[in-house]
């Protein structure tokens, strides 16, 4: 009752909702980069939101199923096929024992999420199955998938399950936005320390996602953002979506594998509901930002949560 890795793909790691409760020890949160796609994949196969999914990056793996399973693939469209035939994204699909799930050429996005009904059999480390590659723990032996890995499944599919159609349609459109729309941000704690030009640049110009962008953070390239005066900043807690600005003025957007604390001025934070769009942005693409207030950011997050709660209540059985 397992899956065999025929080809590992570029970077395939197990992720869940993250490692809560250890950040005071310097332990990063990790977790899915696109939390919405992760939760959707789980909901489609009837899993709880906290079950780990496989986060597949750019070039997907080939996985041989040694038992029948019900799967769902969400997030980036990396041309998934089962036994050579294309499968629908965003719905539950039955895979026969002996079939291979493969990925082809990227059509959109960067990270796809694979959920298997019942979940993958992984061992929790500090309360989470999320892989932290730099720390060497979590997921499958603390590493991305490797050729020959055998990943256990917590249960085998007993009969074909009806696929649920696109519950993502249940998400209010103001949450999803479209890929090209400005990414919504709220002001950071040090917003007022920046020059008026820096503030205008952040919301008025576009930034290129740099080549050195990964699960830890995105380097944003554009007109440098300058402080009005140099400042000494004691390190403090940072979060998923924090935009901090080192002395060179090129912002760093902190993502899932971010450090727990940082000492650079924080000009802004990306609204949580827009983090999935960034998770699907590839290096070389451009992003722009639009300011909203905290009330709006939290209202959108509560709306998204309600949509998820409805979806998960309708499907979850574990």
């Amino acid at each position, binding site marked *: 009752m397992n899956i065999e890795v025929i080809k590992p793909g570029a970077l395939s790691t197990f992720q869940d909702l993250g490692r809560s409760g250890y950040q005071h*020890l310097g332990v*990063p949160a990790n977790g899915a980069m696109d939390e919405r796609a992760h939760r959707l994949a789980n909901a489609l196969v009837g899993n709880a939101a906290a079950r780990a999914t496989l986060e597949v990056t750019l070039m997907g793996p080939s996985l041989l199923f040694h038992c029948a399973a019900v799967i769902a693939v969400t997030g980036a469209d990396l041309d998934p096929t089962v036994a050579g035939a294309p499968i629908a994204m965003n719905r539950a699909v039955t895979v026969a024992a002996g079939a291979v799930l493969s990925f082809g050429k990227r059509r959109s996005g960067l990270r796809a999420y694979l959920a298997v009904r019942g979940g993958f059999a992984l061992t929790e480390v500090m309360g989470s199955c999320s892989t932290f590659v730099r*720390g060497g723990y979590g997921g499958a032996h603390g590493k991305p998938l490797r050729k020959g890995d055998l990943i256990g499944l917590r249960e085998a599919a007993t009969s074909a399950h009806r696929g649920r159609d696109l519950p993502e349609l249940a998400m209010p459109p103001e949450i999803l936005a479209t890929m090209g729309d400005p990414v919504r941000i*709220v002001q950071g704690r040090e917003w007022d320390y920046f020059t008026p030009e820096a503030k205008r640049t952040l919301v008025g110009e576009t930034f290129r996602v740099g080549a050195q962008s990964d699960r830890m953070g995105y380097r944003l390239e554009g007109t440098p953002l300058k402080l009005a005066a140099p400042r000494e900043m004691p390190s403090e807690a940072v979060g998923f979506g924090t935009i901090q600005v080192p002395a060179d003025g090129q912002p760093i957007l902190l993502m899932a594998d971010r450090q727990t604390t940082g000492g650079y001025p924080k000009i802004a934070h990306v609204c949580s509901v827009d983090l999935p769009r960034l998770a699907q942005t590839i290096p070389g693409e451009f992003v722009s930002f639009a300011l909203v207030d905290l009330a709006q950011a939290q209202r959108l997050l509560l709306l998204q949560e309600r949509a998820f709660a409805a979806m998960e209540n309708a499907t979850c059985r574990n």
Partner: protein
Amino acid sequence: MNPHKDASMPVEYATANPPWQIVPSGDRCLIIEFAATADLGANRKARAAAAKISAAALPGVTDVVPALTTVGVHYRPCAVPLAATKQIPFEALASLMEGVLHQVEPSSCAASSVIEIPVCYGGEYGPDLEDVAAACGLTPAQVIELHSEAAIDVMMLGFAPGHPYVGRFDERLAPPRRATPRTAVAAGSIGLANRQTVIYPMVLPGGWNLIGRTPLALFDPDRESPCLLAAGDRVRFVPITVAQFASIQAGAAGAQ
């Protein structure tokens, strides 16, 4: 709706000028600030407050992260009960937080036991000891003595799992960080700069001056307590020889 109003506005308090400010830091985190500068008094207040907030187990709170002068509180906005329809989760949690903060005794994290950290100073393990001594106008032996003479606070953990910031040391131990950081610093390395010490729990890039190394494992994800130290602990560095270093390391390896 004025987009320039919200994020930097502290919550208003019933009492005048409480010694902290609660401000949002994104839509899932808030920061309680005790002082704008890094002194040990503010750090102790932050640690005492963090302990109290953790113990209070407020709804929606997932992580309470004490830092040098602040406490970061990560939370799930959907799990924070709202007292009024117009209230947003940040405001609701900030007012719950205020109730907890008013109960914090400033001295409540003073008494903790001292953890001894054996350190082999200088030589291969502490390649910057001589430079540090020169920069501080001291001999290497004096640096070791000042670094190991007294128990000292673990001010916070951050940067990497189990990575402590320890301080503050005698004012003579204030060399700046290295101009060029190293790309790989060995696990157990003891860094010193600006009256603070860090201990690298794993191989990491780092710009601190390396004055020694401990054979203890600061972080092991498979241990029941993965991190050797936590904010609020007190540590004392105990000088050991190369031979003692080897024997402690061999003992740890044998125990596995």
